[in-house]
């Protein structure tokens, strides 16, 4: 026993994180002490301001040139270039999600009330609402931020849970279709917990192998130890299962459609954008920082996973009849495209920066488009809630050309049609993959190109179902009792507007966004 070293914590670097968590805590206190009628009017500005503030802090940190080169908080958190970029993206996206949450009518008045019971009716008529949603969202966002920046597996695990637990709850709070929502919540929870158990066991194995859970520590242990240690391989596969689950990669994607469909749409938007971004950040970090030495072992597996993810996502999406389910499968397919990028990150540093930058860029554009698309989904409503079934969307182009046009544009961006941001995202990732393939000169080159071809085929398949929706909206006759398009609230309008702006703007002039991504990636992950 030679005592403890008193840890140091760089509060400045962690400020955005702390701000979000702090605001979440304050939100809880507001719930506790503010009178009911005041809560919403306190919570909304609080959430928005904290997110904006955190974003500003990120900007300030970057602007001062203060991107740290060593991990903060005793090596627990790495606030490096990619982290800051991902933070910025998550914060902006979650800002959008909060604006959508702010809309009335998405959340149940009293979650504990049995659907269809007198309790519920009473809660509805008394105009009750769960303003707890806001702190929960903030906690989830905080978890996302930490998840993407965690520099050791323990912090990553904790962040994973901090991110997931509020989301489990939020999923179950949809006001309409309560049963679906609760079911989504249950499924998400059980599967999520299951996967985090895998993550944890993998972590245990790796700890057994390396004697540490810090990512660089693992890398170091691998550089000296045997790479064929069963502990390492087993641990790594289990860890991978946990992580891939979160991004919804192919064999572990089953939760996504269910959860996306059942959850309240603003939450779906948050999950589809923020969670994916954060989880990708974590995946990248684990694969690049910790497992960089194990290239050859994980590569083929990842190849299969990536290919499977793209194909499964694209093909199953075709059979969907619900718009949110379809977007969920689309999100799976996009996760696959992102994995192509992950595959490309194994080269020497500057090469890696290129791949990394491609992924970051993809995350940025995909996130915005997704939030925008879900925001549109919230606006098309039936008497019973959102018009989920695709047949209800028929002829929307006639009823509301503007909205349908915007949505079509988002779909085209998902499909990766040129002059939308989605195209450049896809291009960036494909280019990174091909480049990593052409340069190595080994057989991996052909594999990577092959993967890109698979990606292209998947894109073509995916384009089919995006186009199908467009066909429905524009080329079909509207049903007589079609859904109504509600006038968007200020927040939703802003979300859609910004998403559209980014999708168009990046589609025409991607350079500024690319510059930022490049700059963020140039520092690479702290190793």
């Amino acid at each position, binding site marked *: 026993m030679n005592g403890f070293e008193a840890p140091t914590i760089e509060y400045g670097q962690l400020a955005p994180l702390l701000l979000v968590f702090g605001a979440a805590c304050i939100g809880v206190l507001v719930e506790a002490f503010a009178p009911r009628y005041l809560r919403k009017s306190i919570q909304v500005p609080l959430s928005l301001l904290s997110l904006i503030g955190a974003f500003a802090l990120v900007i300030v940190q970057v602007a001062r040139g203060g991107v740290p080169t060593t991990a903060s908080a005793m090596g627990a958190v790495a606030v490096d270039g990619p982290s800051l970029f991902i933070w910025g993206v998550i914060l902006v996206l979650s800002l959008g999600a909060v604006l959508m949450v702010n809309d009335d009518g998405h959340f149940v008045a009293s979650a504990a009330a049995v659907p269809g019971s007198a309790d519920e009716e009473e809660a509805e008529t008394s105009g009750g609402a769960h303003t707890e949603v806001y702190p929960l969202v903030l906690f989830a966002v905080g978890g996302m931020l930490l998840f993407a920046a965690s520099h050791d597996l323990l912090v990553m695990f904790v962040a994973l849970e901090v991110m997931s637990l509020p989301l489990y709850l939020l999923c179950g709070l949809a006001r309409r279709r309560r049963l679906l929502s609760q079911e989504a919540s249950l499924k998400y929870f059980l599967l999520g917990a299951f996967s985090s158990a895998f993550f944890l066991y993998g972590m245990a194995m790796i700890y057994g192998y390396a004697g540490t859970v810090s990512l660089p520590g693992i890398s170091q242990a691998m550089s000296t130890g045997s790479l064929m240690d069963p502990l390492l391989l087993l641990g790594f596969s289990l860890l991978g299962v946990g992580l891939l689950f979160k991004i919804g990669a192919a064999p572990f994607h089953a939760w996504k459609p269910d959860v996306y469909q059942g959850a309240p749409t603003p939450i779906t938007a948050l999950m589809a954008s923020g969670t994916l971004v954060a989880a990708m950040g974590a995946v990248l970090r684990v694969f690049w920082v910790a497992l960089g030495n194990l290239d050859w072992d994980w590569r083929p597996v990842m190849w299969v996973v990536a290919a499977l993810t793209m194909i499964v996502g694209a093909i199953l999406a075709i059979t969907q009849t619900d718009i949110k389910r379809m977007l969920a499968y689309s999100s799976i397919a996009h996760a696959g495209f992102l994995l192509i990028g992950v595959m490309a990150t194994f080269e020497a540093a500057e090469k890696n920066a290129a791949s990394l930058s491609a992924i970051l860029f993809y995350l940025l554009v995909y996130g915005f488009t997704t939030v925008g698309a879900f925001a549109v989904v919230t606006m098309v409503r039936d008497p019973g809630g959102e018009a989920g079934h695709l047949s209800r969307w028929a002829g929307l182009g006639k009823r509301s050309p503007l909205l349908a046009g915007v949505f079509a544009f988002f779909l085209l961006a998902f499909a990766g049609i040129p002059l939308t941001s989605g195209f450049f995202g896809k291009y960036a990732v494909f280019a990174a993959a091909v480049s990593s393939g052409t340069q190595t000169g080994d057989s991996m080159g052909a594999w990577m190109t092959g993967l890109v071809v698979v990606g292209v085929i998947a894109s073509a398949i995916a384009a*089919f179902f995006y186009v199908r929706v467009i066909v429905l909206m*524009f080329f079909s006759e509207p049903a007589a009792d079609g859904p109504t398009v509600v006038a968007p609230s200020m927040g939703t309008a802003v979300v859609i507007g910004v998403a559209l702006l980014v999708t168009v703007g990046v589609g025409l002039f*991607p350079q500024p966004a690319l510059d930022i991504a490049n700059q963020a990636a140039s520092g690479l992950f702290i190793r």
Partner: protein
Amino acid sequence: MSPWLPILMAVPVLGAVVVALLPKGSDKLAKQVTLLVSLVVMVLTLVMAVQFSPRGDRFQFVAEYNWIPSFGVKFGVGVDGVALVLIALSVVLVPIVVLASWNDADGVKTADGTVIAPKRSVKTYFSLLLVLETMMIGVFAATDIFLFYIFFEAMLIPMYFMIGSYGGAQRSYAAVKFLLYSLFGGLLMLVAVIGLYFAAGKGTFMFPELVGAIQDPATQKWLFAGFFIAFAIKAPLVPVHTWLPDAAAQAPAGAAVLLVGVLDKVGTFGMLRFCLELFPEAAKAFTMPIVVLAVISIIYGAIVAIGQTDMKRLIAYTSISHFGFIVMGVFAMSQVAQSGAALYMVNHGFATGALFLVAGFLISRRGSPYIADYGGVQKVAPVLAGFFLVAGLAGLSLPGLSSFVSEFMVMVGTYSSQAFGSGGLAVAAIVSAVAVILAAVYILWMVQRALNGPTAESVKGFKDLNVREVVVLAPLVALIIGFGFFPKPLLDVITPSVQHTLTNVDVKNPAIAEKGAGE
């Protein structure tokens, strides 16, 4: 840095924005604005074309701006002879199409009140048309391959909406088929584009710099395949042609003209410029199978056309046959054949355009695309029938009409091609000549069934062409006849450009280069 091309591209897009932003109910104004814009573009293009000097640099009116430095992408435009004539073709067709589809979006009704197409948004249609014009100019003008690709893909979207929203009964099926085919090809091309970029390792997509950059034959072949499949889909070559008859048949006449007349040319244009020049070795290696495919296209298209009962589908299949000729010409690797192919692209645009339009006018009177529903139109509407006949004859390449020159050049060039030793492709040329006969069969049969013979009951009430329709068709017919007798201005512009191509193809094989240039 010449501002010509950027201006040409900017004008229609601005026009499209203006049209789209017009207040509700100003449909007429929208049409007028569109017409005006397209005419302005046409005039500007012609003014620019006059300044083009065939003996000058290969690419003229060059403009380059940095666009996405991270990807090495530039906004690079410039035209050589082939591109120039194709741009000219596009900008000439657009005002004609505008006029031709003046009433299409208003909902097409036949004389007896059958609704063929319900009323749709006029403004959207015309702004899409203008956007499409920009992209057509852009795709031919792009010297940056990435930019080319972007236009190549983006072009699909306005066309997709034009077919899907304004087309016939099966429109959404046709539109989706069209989009997916093209998109798939495009994505393969994207892979090839990316591969090209990294394999060349020059950090740029500029076409002139990439010529000769790829030396490794295997790489060339892969990349060639990527490009070629995309172009083959675009310029429908058997066996990836099946989208065209559907799309052309379902599209409104105006859109069909642009689709077949211009959009598909991008495919053959791309083969000529990119496939050949960037990957000469691969091109040579693949010449034989491609020429075989082209011949199959020629014959197959013609035979199937004979069996068609739907006028628009028939025209579409004739186009497949014609595209076969063009592809054959491109890959015959001789200057005559390639010049002919390039010329054919233009002439086919005019001829098929005229045919589609006149067929469209006919159909709009009866509401049925089926040949069997017509008969004896000649007596009721002689002017219409006259135009129909001329257009049809242009389609079968009657001497004296423009297509003849180009078809002849292609066949002669192919016959005398040195690509596989002297007369190596002669068989192809001879076989393809059969198609000339078949062409006579399908066109004349259609003309005979639709125009001649006893006047069908349903045709009796037909009005002859009105002024607008005459104004639409007259210039086309004039051009068809004019270039039929005097193709020199076009050839003057095209030939030097084709020579460049051949030079680039044969960089590593000077013997053939000399022969090619000497022909």
